[in-house]
């Protein structure tokens, strides 16, 4: 409460920044009014503080004390700089956003099947009468950073699948922070509208290439029609100067399925909120996540699944590998609402602590208001099994290699679930590159 009463010079900075860029922001006059309301929500609440339960383990001070600005234009990185972030052999449609601006040059959308729309969110807003900055179908949980995004976002991906459309190739949504200038912020907003019986796979990829500190604040909305299926692979590889905050909201109609895979490898500080609301029967959500904070990284995953009606299913598995001074936070909330009978939910979060300086804080929460349900959760924190290390050593594998094999295989089951071979190899390589002993593993393989 006191946060709102204090004079917050940084909030003033963002009010001024909004005034500076408002004219350039996409959308009609009506949507500008929506943005202004969101800006007020943000300025009233300010940045969340660690006194709030949801932010107990993650302090946003490093973001708060800086004054980030919107990039007026993209500093398009060279192909060479971008090349390491394009998974080899990945056959995908590609939409690229650089510093919050759609880049037609880097994108490749030819050959989309009829019924599938993939375009710049800004272009969609400017071209569509009555388009709203927030998906009307989604009961979004208010959060001040999502409000900040709604006020400031410059672009993103707009994907719409007409009823019955199935896209067989993944859609690679690549958001690049050029880091070419100091203290820039990238506010991107994606919306995926899945019509009845449609199917799509989206690789939502965040990368940072430059040396300057920057801030990415992303929001993704998924409107899940009846019997639609969305596979979303979020790969977060911000630079080590990057601050990353992102939120995902899915609202699911009858028989719809969401498979969400999260890989958090980059960023100085990353906070990811993943929310799914199952509002209709027989809907399913599967959340998988791997986070690997090393060095001085701080990675915080918050998930929330609302079983709002009967007969729905959720599965959630998160694994963390923490080394050096890495700090990991996992908070998984499952709410089974009154009358959400026959809900079937299971959740597990495991963490592997590889260093005494690393820290993990886990909180798997259950809130249950219905009695005929199956709800279970489990959580473990531990280290490599010395017997297993010994076994591998007795087979002629060196100490480092043995530890690397066990460390990687801990995360491996969730990496494989992605199911796109080119992406699996890409994530595996990226994960090995940062885990201790990764080179030893690569040498063995």
């Amino acid at each position, binding site marked *: 409460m006191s946060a709102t009463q204090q004079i917050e010079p940084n909030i003033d900075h963002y009010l001024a920044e909004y005034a500076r860029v408002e004219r350039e922001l996409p959308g009609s006059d009506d949507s500008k009014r929506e943005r202004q309301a969101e800006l007020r929500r943000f300025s009233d609440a300010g940045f969340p503080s660690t006194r709030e339960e949801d932010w107990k383990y993650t302090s946003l001070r490093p973001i708060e004390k800086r004054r980030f600005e919107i990039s007026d234009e993209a500093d398009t990185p060279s192909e060479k700089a971008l090349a390491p972030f394009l998974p080899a052999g990945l056959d995908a449609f590609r939409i690229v956003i650089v510093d919050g601006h759609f880049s037609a040059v880097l994108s490749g959308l030819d050959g989309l099947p009829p019924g599938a729309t993939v375009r710049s969110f800004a272009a969609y807003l400017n071209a569509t009468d009555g388009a709203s900055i927030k998906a009307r179908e989604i009961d979004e949980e208010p959060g001040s950073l999502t409000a900040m995004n709604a006020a400031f976002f410059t672009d993103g991906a707009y994907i719409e699948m007409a009823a019955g459309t199935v896209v067989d190739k993944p859609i690679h949504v690549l958001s690049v922070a050029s880091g070419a200038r100091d203290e820039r912020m990238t506010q991107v907003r994606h919306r995926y509208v899945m019509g009845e019986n449609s199917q799509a796979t989206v690789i939502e990829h965040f990368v940072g290439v430059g040396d300057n500190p920057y801030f990415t604040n992303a929001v993704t909305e998924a409107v899940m029609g009846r019997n639609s299926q969305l596979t979303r692979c979020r790969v977060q590889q911000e630079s080590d100067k990057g601050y990353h905050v992102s939120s995902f909201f899915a609202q699911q109609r009858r028989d719809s399925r969401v498979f969400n895979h999260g890989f958090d490898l980059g960023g100085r500080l990353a906070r990811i909120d993943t929310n799914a609301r199952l509002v209709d029967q027989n809907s399913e959500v599967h959340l998988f996540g791997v986070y690997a904070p090393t060095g001085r990284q701080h990675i915080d995953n918050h998930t929330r699944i609302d079983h709002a009606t009967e007969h729905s299913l959720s599965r959630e598995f998160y694994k963390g590998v923490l080394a050096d001074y890495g700090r990991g936070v996992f908070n998984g909330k499952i709410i089974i609402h009154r009358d959400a009978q026959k809900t079937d939910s299971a959740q597990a979060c495991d963490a592997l602590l590889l260093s005494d300086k690393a820290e*993990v804080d886990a909180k798997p929460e259950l809130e249950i208001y219905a009695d005929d349900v199956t709800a279970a959760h489990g959580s473990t924190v531990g280290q490599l099994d010395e017997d297993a290390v010994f076994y591998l050593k007795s087979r002629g594998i060196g100490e480092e290699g043995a530890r690397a094999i066990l460390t990687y295989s801990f995360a491996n089951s969730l990496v494989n679930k992605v199911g796109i071979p080119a992406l699996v190899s890409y994530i595996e390589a990226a994960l090995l590159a940062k885990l201790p002993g990764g080179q030893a593993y690569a040498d063995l393989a």
Partner: protein
Amino acid sequence: MAAHQEDVEALVAEREYEAGFVTDLESDTIAPGLNEDVIRFISGKKDEPEWMLEWRLEAYRQWKQMKSPKWPHLHYAPIDYQKISYFSAPKSSAGKPKSLDEVDPKLLETYAKLGIPLHEQEMLAGVEGASYPRSNNVAVDAVFDSVSVATTFKGKLKDAGVIFCSISEAIQEHPELVKKYLGSVVPRGDNFFAGLNAAVFTDGSFVYIPKGVRCPMELSTYFRINAENTGQFERTLIIAEAGSHVSYLEGCTAPQRDENQLHAAVVELVAEDDAEIKYSTVQNWYPGDENGKGGIFNFVTKRGDCRGARSKISWTQVETGSAITWKYPSCILTGDDSVGEFYSVAVTRGMQQADTGTKMIHIGRNSKSTIIAKGISAARGEQAYRGLVKILPSAANARNFTQCDSLLIGDKCGAHTFPYVESRNSTAKLEHEATTSKIGEDQMFYCLQRGLTEEDAVSLIVNGFCKDVFKELPMEFAVEAQKLLDVTLENAVG
């Protein structure tokens, strides 16, 4: 089968609170309100030394700066701390009775009615018609509203070197011990309710087990709230010196009243090298009626410090009463190889709410903790398990196992789990698991076709669910807890 489910719920719906009577007794109660004068009055009434009064006043000053916690999963109207009377004592206890013969017969009657034997000679296992049978090998300290009325078996304990008396007496007789340990585990400014307790605590038990002594009998305190509009603020301090052992039991009841009464207690345990403290509670404060009218607000801070190497503190609790329970018996595992345990059964029915759990803070090397929490929620009860397991960098090879299970009876109740795990040592191993279920129709069917009545079947299943905790209770308490659970859930499940 659906019909059967309703029967189950109907069975849980109503039961009488057996301890709900009021003892008509003249008592010395001060006017409601809280200020420094009230604290001076309490301190003066107890003839306390100056340092104790100062300690209380400092606590009060700290408390005034604090705010009531908002984070629990509990809903209640704000408590007006100026409307509570902070001291009430039966008039007859003005001059401390020298023997039980001098104790007001009405008081003795109250305890007899509750099944708490205060007569050392006459005690038999299981007082006729009482719901709290006790064997005669238990020393009892009986606390009535704000004062301790009697402590039994003092002589026998003295021979063993054990000090067991009310805390007021300890302040007079053993000030050096009280000064050394009071507030050393739960500091005055620890939390809102502990701060309030430190300022206005009226009585409670004091236990000191000297080096190497195994306490010859179980110690027990029985708390009873009787007077209207009063709060009970007791403070218990148990010190187990190196190599000693003690088992301590605690029970509580209150009359049936329409308004809420506040109970804010603090319990501090200190275990030195190789010492072991076993602390068992059966909490059966008046829970309010099925519409949530009346009942005790139970805000308790319980914490044990395993200071010594290889020390052990074990908390076992059966929580069936109170309109609101806010309670987290915790262990600070400072000593190397120290052990902390928490076993809990909590039942909420009617409109009861409970937010309970534990904290295990691992500091010493090889420290171990076990948490088994069983929650049963029926009717419109709301229950939350809230636990913290924290491993500090110094706690190499620390080990924790946590299991919390919830049983839901009826579709209007709630069961929630908020387990916090914080690990900062790479050699620590932590496990947590939680499940939520209801009484299965096939379980019921199996029992019924074997000839059990519905009530017996439910009782069997529920007792099986709680077995892991009950087996940790001392024998007499286990029987009592099982009975209590049966009456609590009587008419709850069918």
